[in-house]
């Protein structure tokens, strides 16, 4: 092999190497960076703020349709979501961020459809979104975010149960019903005999009654 051939071979190797490095950089550039706990808190804050607006609108619709029990449940859930949003906001501020929410006008349908929509949202939050956010917060050892996510996750689970219950027998939800919402974690229940919040251990006096 003469010198010319050696130079050509070296150039080819260098070109391949350079190409692979560039391709690597492009892949890195294309890969979505992992969301930080601050990002997750912002996502959760935005979600809770929108959920609050949505449930308030759903409550008005349920009331108009004569489902007073369902209206009460939506009102209670709206209060609960506002508590979660406030807790997330505190955690965002503690990380040096500013809570931001893009609250959209909710699409209001019939109460049955609204309940289905609410159930879907609560299941997503309690089964997928918050567990993932919690895992990241645990990895980051951010206790405030952890407890904000844990409280919201436990409350959303309860909301899902209540929405599911309402959907299974809507007739019964025409009657007025009472709900209790924990002012600290947003836990929502129909059990009026409750003494202590099973999630955050606040006493009965720290619950708000919604009718």
């Amino acid at each position: 092999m003469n010198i010319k051939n050696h130079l050509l071979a070296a150039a080819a190797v260098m070109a391949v190497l350079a190409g692979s490095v560039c391709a690597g950089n492009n892949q890195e550039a294309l890969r979505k960076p992992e969301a930080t706990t601050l990002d997750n808190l912002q996502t959760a804050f935005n979600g809770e703020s929108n959920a609050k607006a949505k449930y308030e609108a759903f409550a008005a619709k349920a009331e108009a349709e004569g489902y007073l029990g369902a209206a009460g449940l939506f009102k209670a859930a709206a209060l609960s979501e506002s508590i979660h949003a406030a807790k997330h906001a505190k955690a965002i501020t503690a990380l040096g961020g500013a809570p931001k929410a893009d609250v959209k006008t909710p699409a209001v349908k019939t109460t049955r459809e609204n309940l289905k929509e609410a159930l879907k949202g609560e299941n997503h939050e309690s089964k997928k979104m918050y567990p993932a956010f919690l895992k990241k917060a645990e990895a980051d050892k951010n206790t405030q975010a952890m407890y904000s996510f844990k409280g919201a996750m436990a409350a959303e689970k309860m909301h899902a149960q209540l929405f599911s219950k309402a959907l299974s027998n809507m007739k019964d939800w025409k009657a007025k019903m009472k709900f209790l919402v924990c002012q600290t974690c947003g836990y929502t229940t129909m059990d009026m005999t409750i003494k202590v919040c099973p999630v955050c251990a606040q006493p009965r006096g720290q619950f708000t009654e919604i009718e």
Partner: protein
Amino acid sequence: MKKIFLVFFPAGAAAALYFWYFNNANSPFGSYFADRMGLAMAFGRLAGIIAMLGVMGQLLLVSRAGWLEPLFGLDRLTRRHHLAGLIIPLALLVHPPLVVWHHAMQTGNTFLAQYLAVLRWGDVLAAACGEFLIIAAVALSLPFARRRLSYEAWHNAHLGAYLGLALALGHQFSLGRDLSAELLYFAWVWYALLAFTAANVLWYRLQLPYRLYRKHRFAVDRTVMETADVMSVYIKGKELEAFPVEPGQFALLRFWAPGFRFQAHPFSFSAAGGGELRFSVKKLGDFTAALHAGLRPGTPVVIGGPHGVFTARRMVTGKALLVAGGIGITPLRAIAGRLAAEKKDCVLVYANRTRKDIVFEAELAELERSGSVRVRHVLSDEPSWAGEKGRVDADLLRRLVPDLAERDAFLCGPPPMMAALRRGLAGLGVPEKQIHYEQFSL
């Protein structure tokens, strides 16, 4: 039945601790053991549970329950009571800050703001007052405080612990996770423990003495001055042969007369038999001074007991050495009487300051004449005394009783003298099981 009673409280306490673990490992938040904020809550709750179990255990120890006391003797129970008593204030001091810190982190409040907020929660303020009373009862029982307090003040502070428990109970019912949890059977463990403790206290401390009174109708027959400051109270009653007293035991006496009926005080039987009971009381404080001045024949007496295992039944040898200091003669006088009746070899060494302080001098001389009992008086402040002088210590005992290692030693006197003699006798080779003593002042 006795075995069931003995196992009941430890088993209930173990169940309560298991439920604590279960509750905290399976909260809707996930496990409280996963992070420091959760750990604060979990261990704050544990401290509350330990304090509650501790108070109930203490009440059982001092309930003078018939199934508990004979197994250990009141002195051992009392020592356990003193040691366990130290754990309760520590747990009570740790419980609030840990729980409040957890809540403060939850709500985002400052610790102080959260503390004040928690105080306004149902029953928490009452529980805080209860906590103060329980801690005060323990603090006033610490040696440096106890020395400065009269029996009455100390006793009242201890009664305050009952009120403290009552005040704290509401808080546990309304906020305690084990009692208010959705899993109701958790609560049943606590209900069972509380009921068991209350039943024992009510039965052994209140119901039993009054039942005894209804049966025997105890009343003061007469009082006799033994020395310038020791008075014997003779008590008569119905069917006293059915009131079994072992010499060396003591009872809690409540004289049913104005000024006396709200206090029960422990006194040793200085004699029992012949259709009457005798207690000999030295004028030591306000209560005993009032008894000397105001106790009248015919006064009804509610008697709790007899208590104690400081009796000749504990003897493991055939011979005895009795060492008394001052008014400590009372149980030993009764034991000496029993040993004399059984013709057992017995030496009684009796320490006093002066000859005028010797209680039962004539009775002891009478016992000596029975043959099996030798009495040696030791006086520390009587220059003209021809007998033994100075203080009773190991050297004096070895000289007076050369075969003391072959005897059972029964000690009763001021605590410093008892402590010194216990060490001294052990140093002289008297086996531990042959040294008997009992501190009945709880």
